[in-house]
């Protein structure tokens, strides 16, 4: 990667006794779609507000294109933000909302009009330029907010829970639009979200945050398939945590209370206590044959898959996804199989 666009170094921030950010370091590239993912209170919004300039870190530096941003007020940062509440100006129409940032920069009327019309077209709002903000639907407001933040051609666009206020169907459609607009504008997008699906769907890279710290930074597939910590594995997607002892002799496997599960040992020593995280859909479900025996305790139909709860020991229940068309009833005996690369070994957390 060439020199990062945004470089966050050892940033910490406290609010009274509450630690919002603790020694956070991140590098973001130009043109990247980056996600800050975490549960509420993990510090992701504080980090975004530090980048925008509404909060200043207690320690550490944030630099944009190599220029230290500390002490630079929000109105001089080439970074724009799309607010969760959209914060559209109710006394201005759609056109003037989008033109607001351009008018602050100065510039000719023709140039401003051209840029606003370009953005209206990009967000499919061309017919709505003269509408009042309160005459718009939720999805239209969201697009006005996006166009307004993009208008001054920021080096980086921050999006605070941009899809949270939309209903489910509209959200999926908007995800594609966001990706498309990001691709067209070649602008770095940083999205803050607590919704793992949103982060996985949109971002090139994801930083999973927890209690003011960054747990893992990686691409969506790696975050999902190779979570670095138990928290990441549990927060992103559904998973089974299987505890046991690693045996490296011959084909490596985890010795759990209910059986032997093949796995990739990584650099764990022989005999180490470890937790294996296995996604439900990576577990094979069959009526008979090889594998760990269990009994279907419950099931939930999910459309393309059926999620089974399978009891494999008196105190252990695993979740496994059966493919489309496979029918299982409560009480059916099943066999669970684990392909070697199915899970990720995690350190025991205290």
């Amino acid at each position, binding site marked *: 990667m060439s020199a990062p666009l945004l470089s966050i170094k050892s940033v910490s921030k406290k609010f009274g006794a509450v630690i919002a950010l603790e020694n956070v370091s991140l590098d973001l590239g130009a043109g990247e779609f980056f996600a800050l993912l975490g549960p509420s209170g993990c510090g992701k919004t504080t980090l975004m507000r530090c980048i925008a300039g509404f909060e200043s870190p207690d320690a550490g530096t944030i630099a944009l294109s190599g220029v230290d941003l500390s002490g630079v007020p929000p109105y001089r940062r080439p970074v724009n933000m799309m607010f969760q509440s959209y914060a559209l*100006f109710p006394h201005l129409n759609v056109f003037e909302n989008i033109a607001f940032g351009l008018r602050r920069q100065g510039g000719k009327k023709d140039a401003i009009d051209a840029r606003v019309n370009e953005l209206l077209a990009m967000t499919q709002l061309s017919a709505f330029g003269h509408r009042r903000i309160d005459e718009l639907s939720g999805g239209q407001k969201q697009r006005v907010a996006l166009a307004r933040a993009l208008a001054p051609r920021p080096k980086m666009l921050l999006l605070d829970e941009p899809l949270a206020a939309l209903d489910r169907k509209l959200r999926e459609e908007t995800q594609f639009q966001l990706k498309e607009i990001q691709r067209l504008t070649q602008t770095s997008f940083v999205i803050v979200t607590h919704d793992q699906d949103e982060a996985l769907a949109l971002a090139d890279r994801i930083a999973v945050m927890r209690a003011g710290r960054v747990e893992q930074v990686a691409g969506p597939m790696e975050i999902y398939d190779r979570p670095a910590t138990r928290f990441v594995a549990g927060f992103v997607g559904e998973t089974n945590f299987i505890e046991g002892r690693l045996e490296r002799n011959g084909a490596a496997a985890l010795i759990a209370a209910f059986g032997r599960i093949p796995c990739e040992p990584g650099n764990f020593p022989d005999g180490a206590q470890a937790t294996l995280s296995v996604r439900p859909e990576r577990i094979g479900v069959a009526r008979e044959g090889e594998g760990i025996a269990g009994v279907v305790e419950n099931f939930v139909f999910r459309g393309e898959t059926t999620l089974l709860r399978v009891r494999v020991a008196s105190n252990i229940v695993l979740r496994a996804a059966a493919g489309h068309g496979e029918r299982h009833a409560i009480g059916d005996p099943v066999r669970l199989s684990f392909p070697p690369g199915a899970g990720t070994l995690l350190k025991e957390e205290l």
Partner: protein
Amino acid sequence: MSAVVSWARRATLFMGFLFLYAPIAILAVMSFNASRLVSVWGGFSTKWYAALLENEQLLHSAKISLAAALISATIATLLGLLAAISLARFGRFRTRMLFFGAVHAPLVLPEVVLGLALLTCFVAFGVGRGFITLVIGHVTLTMCFTTVAILAALRDSDPALEEAAMDLGATPFGAFVRVALPQIAPAIVTAYLLAFTLSLDDLVIASFATGPGATTLPMRIYSQVRLGVSPQINAISTLLLALVAVALGLAALVSSRRARRDGQVMTSRARAPDNAS
């Protein structure tokens, strides 16, 4: 509903309005009475209004009152705006509760006490009483009302709007002027009109705060009434009444238009399906 109940309701309503507005209506009617006697109707005439124009004393007082109301309302609105900004936007600064209490105190303070306090203060500082002390007194009286009106509006306006404006390149001052001020403009107009009418009506504070040469209209009317009710007083009172009614009507119009606009928003929002896709 039976006819009797409905009739009784209308009668109650009528009695209520009669109780409230009969004195004012009689005053207004009597100002057009050709007879000098208050108790006798001598036919319709506007001669007392004509006579007003000749009455230098009354006209002078009217000018004093109008000037004091215009100036004090302007100052009180500006100070109220600043006080409201500090209370709504500056977080929990150390003396915030004290400041909050001090700003609101004149709301509950008896006017006589406030007037006396002002008088004592002017005397203690050796300030000669006149038009300027009158304006100061009225600013003290009306500033709490303007602060309350503007503060309520400022609390309703979303601080994220100002942040968004700053994010888009507006300075903090620019963000306030371009984004917050348009949101609270109706409240500022209302506050100004309220301060204006309060100042125009005031008798108590004016009696304490003003001096010779700056007698306000309510003071002039009050002192003349003690010598007997003259139809000229009826006429000037009717004019005063009309002025206050216009000011309050404007204030009501401003706030109702705002309310109607917000109401429209609610209904249109409820009606419009999400046609974004």
